[in-house]
């Protein structure tokens, strides 16, 4: 396409040389044809063949070569065929007229051919521009983000602009190498920029016609992208605000409850007007101790959670037997906690951070014990399934609504409804965070009575040294 578009103008010396050689070829060809045909046809009629030679030259290289070619034709006709031959003089006056007519016809025909060619080329160019704009508009209106489309659009724009390379950037184009950039703007507004190779200047008429149209399309797309982004940001902000408010309320509640107990107990102990027995005093002191431990646990939980959310909980992995991990977690519960552990013997080991998985299991266990009705057992079981070891902790608590099975893993969610979850409301969120940091998963399942919380950890490949 590019080649054809440029044939109207002779732009380089090599092209000029080709044009001159080809023109000479056409003139020689016509001369040879006349030499052959003059035996049968009157020579003056055959002069018209030169018009046929000039025509393709005009179409292919324009008047720059067509006019010299026409002059060359006249000279060749005169030299070879008009008496006296092999001179540039004419003996017959009417031959002058013939020659003059041929020159005029050749030049006028050439000019017409050039014009037709130019119109066709301009029409083709406009059609290409229009087609490109339409297809850009279609793809942008389809709602594809502008960023994904820019490279594709740039390549097609390069074709329309007859340059080997074009890059469009919004709001600005990246400067790579020796590219010439120009602004893409509509009115006062600069939408972006287009960079093209410096040795291929843009056709000014194409640039002034096509680039503003492209710019206004890109402006619409950029505006739409911006609106979409703002809407998304606003939504994200609103959500994160709601989450923050919920967390703040929950944290303040969870911090205040132990503080209230401590404050009430301590101010009671300090009040000389109260008549407190030794047992009463011991009880108040115990309350202060228990609630201080709870506060400190909450602070640890909050730190764990923020480490997990910041991705700073790097696990220290080692090979562990699942029963050891379960035992570690069991040890964190009170000795008399109603927990029954039944694990199969053939469980594969797991490669995890023992302290973190202990937290996972301990938090799930603690939660299960909290929701269990008095006297009910919390059961711990495990199985190897599809390359994973799945530990299940089952309680006989009030159960979780199907719609809340995922929600309980969000920070500060407690089971909804009548079941009261006491404690920080962070336990399951932290359990999930640590499980995921160790390549595992945690989820809740509804049982006919109560809830099972499952921890799946990838089973480790048996170490090769075990074969030694």
């Amino acid at each position: 396409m590019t080649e054809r578009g440029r044939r109207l103008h002779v732009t380089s010396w090599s092209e000029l040389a080709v044009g001159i050689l080809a023109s000479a070829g056409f003139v020689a060809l016509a001369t040879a044809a006349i030499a052959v045909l003059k035996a049968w046809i009157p020579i003056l009629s055959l002069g018209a063949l030169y018009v046929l030679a000039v025509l393709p030259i005009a179409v292919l290289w324009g008047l720059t070569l067509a006019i010299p070619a026409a002059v060359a034709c006249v000279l060749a006709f005169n030299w070879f065929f008009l008496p006296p031959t092999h001179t540039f003089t004419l003996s017959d006056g009417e031959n002058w007229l013939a020659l003059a007519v041929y020159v005029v016809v050749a030049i006028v025909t050439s000019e017409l051919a050039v014009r037709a060619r130019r119109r066709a080329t301009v029409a083709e160019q406009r059609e290409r521009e229009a087609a490109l704009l339409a297809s850009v508009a279609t793809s942008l209106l389809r709602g594809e983000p502008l960023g994904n489309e820019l490279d594709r659009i740039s390549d097609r724009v390069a074709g329309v602009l007859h340059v080997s390379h074009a890059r469009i950037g919004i709001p600005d184009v990246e400067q790579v190498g020796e590219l010439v950039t120009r602004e893409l703007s509509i009115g006062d507004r600069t939408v972006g920029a287009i960079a093209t190779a410096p040795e291929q200047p843009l056709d000014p008429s194409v640039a002034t016609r096509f680039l503003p149209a492209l710019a206004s399309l890109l402006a619409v797309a950029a505006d739409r992208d911006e609106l979409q982004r703002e809407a998304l940001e606003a939504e994200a902000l609103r959500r994160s605000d709601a989450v923050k408010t919920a967390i703040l309320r929950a944290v303040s509640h969870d911090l205040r409850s132990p503080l209230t107990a401590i404050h009430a107990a301590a101010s009671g102990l300090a009040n000389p007007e109260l008549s407190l027995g030794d047992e009463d005093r011991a009880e108040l002191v115990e309350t202060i101790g228990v609630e201080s431990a709870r506060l400190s646990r909450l602070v640890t939980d909050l730190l764990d959670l923020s480490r997990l959310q910041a991705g700073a909980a790097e696990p220290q992995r080692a090979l562990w037997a699942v029963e050891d991990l379960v035992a570690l977690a069991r040890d964190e519960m009170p000795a008399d906690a109603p927990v029954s552990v039944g694990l199969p013997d053939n469980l594969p080991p797991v490669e995890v951070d023992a302290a973190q998985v202990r937290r996972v299991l301990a938090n799930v266990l603690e939660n299960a014990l909290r929701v269990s009705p008095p006297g009910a057992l919390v059961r711990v079981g495990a199985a190897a399934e599809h390359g994973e070891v799945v530990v299940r902790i089952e309680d006989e608590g009030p159960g979780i609504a199907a719609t809340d099975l995922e929600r309980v893993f969000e920070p500060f969610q407690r089971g909804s409804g009548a079941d009261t979850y006491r404690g920080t409301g962070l336990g399951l969120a932290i359990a999930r965070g640590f499980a995921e940091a160790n390549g595992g998963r945690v989820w809740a399942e509804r049982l006919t009575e109560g809830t099972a919380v499952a921890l799946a950890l990838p089973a480790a490949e048996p170490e090769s040294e075990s074969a030694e």
Partner: protein
Amino acid sequence: MSAARILVVDDEPQILRALRTNLRGAGYEVFTAATAEEALAEAAARQPDAIILDLVLPDGNGTDVCRELRSWTAAPVIVLSAVGEEKEKVEALDAGADDYVTKPFGLDELLARLRAALRRAEPGGDPVVEIGELRVDLEKRAVTLAGRRIQLTPHEFDLLALLARNPGKLLTHTAILREVWGPAYGRESHYLHVYVSQLRRKIEPDPTRPRYLLTEPGAGYRLVEPTPSIES
């Protein structure tokens, strides 16, 4: 007089335990409840003289408990609220709670509120209320400050009389408006602020630093015995 009976309602076992021990040490007879349902059952069974009620309960909120209690007992209710629960607190007060303390609270503060609530609950037929140097004769509709007669408009007097009949008690905007101006005015709290500031100009030694008629931001007003000013 036998010990006053107090019902403490909170779902936090440690708070419940600390309050029970301390209130017993202060000479009260104490019952406890951890849920809204238990609270109503205990209140019916024990007939407490006062109720300390947490606003957030696992099976309901304190406001509903308060409303339910008010339908059959006049025992004063003190709600335990927290920062961030102002709306719930005012709702509970509107529903008939007498006062509140904000968590975490010191025992002294709770005991003071409790004593004041119990004192108000005692039947007293005295038509003359004396608070500091302020003397309100409810029958003769006469008010004196340090023996000096004070002229009040009818609404101003009704407002002061309502507060004087409930010394120390926090009265919500809604409660005052309904009582003084009538049920239709329950939401027009700007009326109230204007009347309160007029009243303060007449009864307060320094209206810019009120010592009798105190503002509880976002909740209401209370008329109190002025504490001796330290700097004067």
